[in-house]
């Protein structure tokens, strides 16, 4: 039977939910009394529970990292090309966990969940969460699953920030940190993009100051624009030029404000698609988590001091055309790790795709990650 699924897929997966009732104090000082995390696992945890790999998600992704849902072959996980049997992160060898972060909109407790204090959705009252808060909740999930130490924590972009944060918050719980297309903090330019995205959402008349759930509406226009801005920054100029150039949809100028250029069509399509499934309050919070991430800030700007507790071995990967989180930013992380005499390898992949490259199947990139995980696998087998 042709299922339409690549043969190396982990196949049909089912999300699970873990409930936590021990209150969690967040970076902001707010306390969440109870929360749920939705997660998926692939592969088998070995007898000494040493082969677990946590995959952290970035801005718009979720716990659904690999495989697909029953009856929906099109529902491939967001990193399905990386994770599966025989893939770079090989589920025949590793027990892989994907978790929807706190504040998310894919099942974990977030702004859409019911606020126990009011019996209504949290909406705007859901606290701002940080990378550190996510790592703390992920650690609780690891406790629940009986995993004391991860063979690796891995992520790209915002996910990589979580992998990095794991290495200094829980030094003895991470053997390897795989930090892809990361930055040690956001530049002013990056924060600026996020702020434009947030303003697009907040100024949408359907936003209702974050309490739109009660108005049976959603700020989809704002979300669409937010996503369009994001997409511009995920692609390189060259990639956009080669994919779209100045191509016109109808071959001629219409002297109107309809969709004329292919790039406009692409951005609108991406915006629409995103606004159909993503929650605006979650988007606002995740962009804040990005903006706030800055481990060096607690150490007078000294990143090496911030990373000093780390004991993990590191693989740091950047992409030459990524201008959102440029190679230079990854080199700052590498420098801080070198200053601490950490075990670290750094690869700069010459890929044309910009920031998005971390999600794509570039052979040099995937071979490198596969080779690294092969070493990790031999340590824990």
């Amino acid at each position, binding site marked *: 039977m042709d299922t339409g699924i690549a043969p190396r897929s982990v196949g049909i997966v089912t999300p699970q939910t873990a409930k936590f009732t021990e209150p969690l104090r967040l970076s902001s000082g707010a306390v969440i009394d109870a929360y749920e995390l939705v997660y998926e696992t692939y592969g088998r945890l070995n007898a000494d529970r040493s082969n677990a790999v946590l995959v952290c998600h970035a801005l718009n992704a979720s716990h659904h990292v690999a495989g697909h849902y029953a009856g929906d072959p099109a529902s491939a996980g967001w990193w399905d090309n990386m994770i599966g049997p025989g893939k770079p992160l090989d589920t025949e060898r590793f027990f892989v966990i994907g978790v929807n972060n706190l504040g998310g909109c894919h099942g974990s407790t977030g702004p859409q969940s019911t606020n126990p204090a009011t019996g209504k959705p949290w909406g705007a009252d859901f606290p701002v969460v940080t990378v550190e808060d996510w790592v703390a909740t992920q650690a609780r999930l690891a406790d629940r699953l009986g995993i004391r130490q991860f063979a690796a924590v891995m992520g790209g972009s915002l996910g990589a920030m979580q992998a990095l944060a794991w290495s200094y918050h829980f030094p003895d719980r991470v053997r390897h940190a795989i930090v892809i297309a990361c930055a040690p903090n956001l530049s002013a330019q990056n924060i600026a993009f996020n702020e434009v995205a947030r303003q697009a959402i907040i100024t949408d008349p359907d936003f209702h100051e974050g309490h739109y759930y009660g108005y049976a509406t959603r700020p989809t226009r704002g979300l669409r624009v937010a996503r369009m801005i994001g997409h511009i920054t995920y692609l390189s100029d060259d990639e956009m030029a080669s994919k779209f150039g100045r191509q016109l949809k109808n071959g001629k100028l219409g002297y109107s404000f309809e969709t004329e250029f292919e790039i406009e069509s692409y951005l609108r399509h991406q915006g629409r698609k995103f606004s159909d499934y993503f929650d605006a309050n979650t988007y606002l919070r995740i962009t804040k988590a990005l903006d706030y991430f800055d481990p060096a800030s607690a150490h007078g700007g000294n990143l090496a001091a911030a990373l000093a507790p780390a004991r993990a071995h590191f693989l740091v990967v950047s992409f030459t055309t990524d201008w959102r989180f440029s190679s230079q930013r990854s*080199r700052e992380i590498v420098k801080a790790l070198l200053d601490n005499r950490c075990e*670290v*390898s*750094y*690869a*700069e992949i010459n890929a044309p795709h910009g920031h998005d490259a971390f999600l794509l199947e570039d052979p*040099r990139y995937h071979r490198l990650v596969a080779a690294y995980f*092969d*070493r990790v696998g031999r340590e824990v087998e």
Partner: protein
Amino acid sequence: MSRNGLKRADFDAIAEWIRPGARVLDLGCGDGVLLKYLKGARGVSGYGVEIDDDDVLGCVTNGVNVIQSDLERGLTEFETGSFDHVILSQTLQAVKNSERVINDMLRVGREGIVTFPNFGYWKNRLQVLGGHMPVSDNLPYQWHDTPNVHLCTISDFENFCAGHGVKILERKVLTNAKAVSALPNLLGALAVYRFQRA
């Protein structure tokens, strides 16, 4: 770059100079075989620096720390004095700015080690006399595809050191992995030096 001299006769010569447990930086480390060897033979820790994608992959496969970087751009990631030994094995001849690279080596490391094919070796001289650029085990490239831009002789290198504040601590000259004592600039195929700031 460091695929020059596939037999790597210089490994043992280098290893003898490395203190057990030393911190080592290997510039132009190729697929990391030297560092892997030194980890096993001397228990060293450290990193390789390599620009080539396949070699970076090779290092990861070999379990050697590697930083993908162009060493000609300067070793800005590495702090002054952070290594016991900085090695430039069969790479000097492929470096454009030799002076800068050697200065960088002596900035980040206490001691430098370089190895290079001696262009003054009689077999090379003979090939030049015969009207051709030398091709050998230590110089395996044709003139048109060689990465080597700064080939030199033992005498050239020692003159360079004398003129650039580099103090040579020890020298080994090898031909077919055997030590050469007489007429090294003529009879030596491979030169191995240990040096520090004068």
